[in-house]
């Protein structure tokens, strides 16, 4: 990853809601031009964090700094951030032009410059010639772009996007993912994106911060989160994961451990929990698409019996029973896998195993 100059940092940000719960402490830094996603299930604190960054909510504790300046107590108008809301929050009584021009007018930009910049921005988001219309005359996708234009036209230091795609239909949502990402890269604007949708997060982001019950469970590139989850929550939230109870047989102290699962089979796994030692309980994680199937027993293979085969077009999902418990395995829909009927015996050769701390 390219080293970036830090533009925004959160230090120990905490928000208490009476007895309703706590968000944080959250520590986070974002580099200039980076696309960071706050990902998590509803109620994990991602929108609260975003609103604290925008200045709409005041943290109970902690510090927010923008380019080294403490802005914890600064109201939103002093922050220069563009926020796009889930429901777009376009002013229903103002035309599209006036909606987009609003932020520039508040900044007392000259009238002729306003016209130029609004026109230019509407062209950039692909919506020329709708300036005189009112928001309720637009489709959901168009409103989405207007909201984006309104947030971008003020040339914010950071663009904040709060689940901006969740009100669009599936087709449009996919297209907008790419459009927003492309726009972000073209303008080089630092962006923080909030979503509960893992596909969105992965397709768009440089880095993803996965939140769980108010805290960051793990932060990293999409590849890091997928390949090397550090907790059961991350492993289960991101993609599909087979998680099997195991016991540590040996560990080299540098991230490689040997695990034994019920039934006595042993496998090698990488781990980020360097303190795992022999005799301790652990979780063995295997991604369903990283499992090779073999017809005969070999060293390092795990005997299994096919319980179910589900055909879904381009893919085949096999439900298998092993001594360690049920395991799911996905395969491309090729003839050799279509022949695997319930009851048949196979041998599994798991690849890229990870060992997680037992939860």
């Amino acid at each position: 990853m390219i080293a970036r100059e830090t533009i925004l940092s959160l230090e120990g940000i905490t928000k208490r809601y009476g007895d309703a719960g706590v968000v944080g402490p959250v520590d986070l830094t974002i580099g200039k031009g980076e696309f960071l996603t706050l990902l998590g299930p509803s109620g994990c604190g991602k929108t609260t964090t975003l609103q604290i960054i925008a200045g709409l909510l005041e943290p109970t504790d902690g510090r927010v700094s923008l380019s080294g300046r403490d802005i914890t107590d600064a109201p939103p108008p002093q922050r220069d951030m563009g926020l796009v809301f889930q429901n777009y929050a376009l002013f229903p009584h103002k035309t599209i032009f006036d909606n987009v021009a609003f932020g520039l007018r508040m900044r007392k930009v000259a009238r002729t410059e306003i016209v130029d910049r609004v026109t230019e921005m509407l062209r950039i988001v692909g919506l020329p010639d709708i300036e005189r219309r009112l928001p309720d005359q637009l489709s959901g996708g168009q409103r989405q772009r207007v909201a984006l234009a309104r947030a971008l036209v003020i040339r914010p230091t950071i663009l904040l996007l709060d689940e901006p795609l969740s009100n669009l239909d599936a087709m449009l949502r996919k297209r907008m993912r790419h459009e927003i990402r492309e726009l972000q890269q073209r303008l080089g604007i630092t962006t923080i994106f909030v979503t509960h949708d893992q596909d969105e997060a992965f397709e768009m982001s440089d880095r993803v911060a996965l939140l769980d019950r108010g805290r960051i469970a793990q932060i990293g590139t999409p590849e890091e989160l997928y390949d090397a989850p550090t907790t059961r929550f991350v492993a289960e939230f991101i993609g599909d994961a087979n998680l099997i109870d195991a016991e540590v047989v040996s560990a080299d102290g540098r991230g490689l451990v040997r695990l034994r699962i019920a039934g006595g089979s042993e496998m090698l796994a990488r781990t980020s929990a360097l303190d795992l030692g022999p005799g301790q309980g652990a979780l063995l994680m295997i991604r369903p698409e990283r499992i090779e199937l073999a017809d005969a027993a070999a060293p390092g293979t795990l005997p299994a019996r096919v319980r179910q085969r589900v055909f879904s077009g381009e893919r085949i999902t096999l439900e298998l029973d092993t001594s360690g418990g049920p395991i799911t395995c996905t395969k491309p829909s090729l003839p050799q896998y279509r022949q695997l009927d319930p009851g048949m015996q196979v041998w599994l050769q798991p690849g890229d195993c990870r060992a997680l701390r037992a939860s």
Partner: protein
Amino acid sequence: MAAAADRRFGIGLLTPIGLLYLFFLILPIGFFLSMGFFKYDVFGLYKPELTGENFARLVVDPYYLDIVALTLKLAGLTTLFSLLLGYPLAFFLTRTRSAWRGALMFLVVAPLTTGVIVRTYGWIVLMGAEGIVNKTLIAAGLIARPLQILHTETAVVIALVHILMPYMVFPLISSLAGQDPNLERAASTLGASRARCFLEVTLPLSRPGILMGSVLVFTLSAGSVVIPQLIGGKDVQMMGQSIYELVLHTLNWPLGSAMASLLVLLQFSIIFVYFRSNRRVRR
């Protein structure tokens, strides 16, 4: 701090209403009500001497005692009849599927907006010695001389019911409209007759509306001045009107204030009873 700025802004927004309420509502009313504890003075407004005689007079002097008793009686009757007339109206308005529902609803509010005076005047035209009712009866040969309709308790109650009924109808509509009509349907499929269904399902569920409406009508009728004055005249004296007389004509502010305190006490004890019974209903 953002929150502190918000608080300042909120307080700023509330400053006009706060000043208005403080200087034109709370302080004057507090001062007026405290007058009741001072001695009456023929030449000034009051004598700065504390006394309980004003309140004592209200309870001991049969003249004022009668006024209090009559007020309770007429306000009670007004509440009762407003409920008896308002309930079917509210029930109809919440259950009808007529296209005229909106218009009918508007007709219930409309009289309220014309002001007390105009509506009272209508009753004078109807009930006066030279009024329409008497003229019609005489013309029909039913009576020889005009009946005394104005200046009777009946006339006051009729006029009060007429003027205050919307205040009964609206809470009733809220509580009846909030009910699930399926409950009634369920009860009737279980074999309950319409009457039983009404008595055992609809009526108990509309209790909050009945209470709210009754409190409103009772307090408003107990405090009314114009109707007793114009329709009741000297013969039907109620508390509101008596306060008016005491302050404006007799210039006995302390006694008027004591009467007003009694009225407020009456109203707030009724509101208190309302909240208590309402809480019980919710539980």
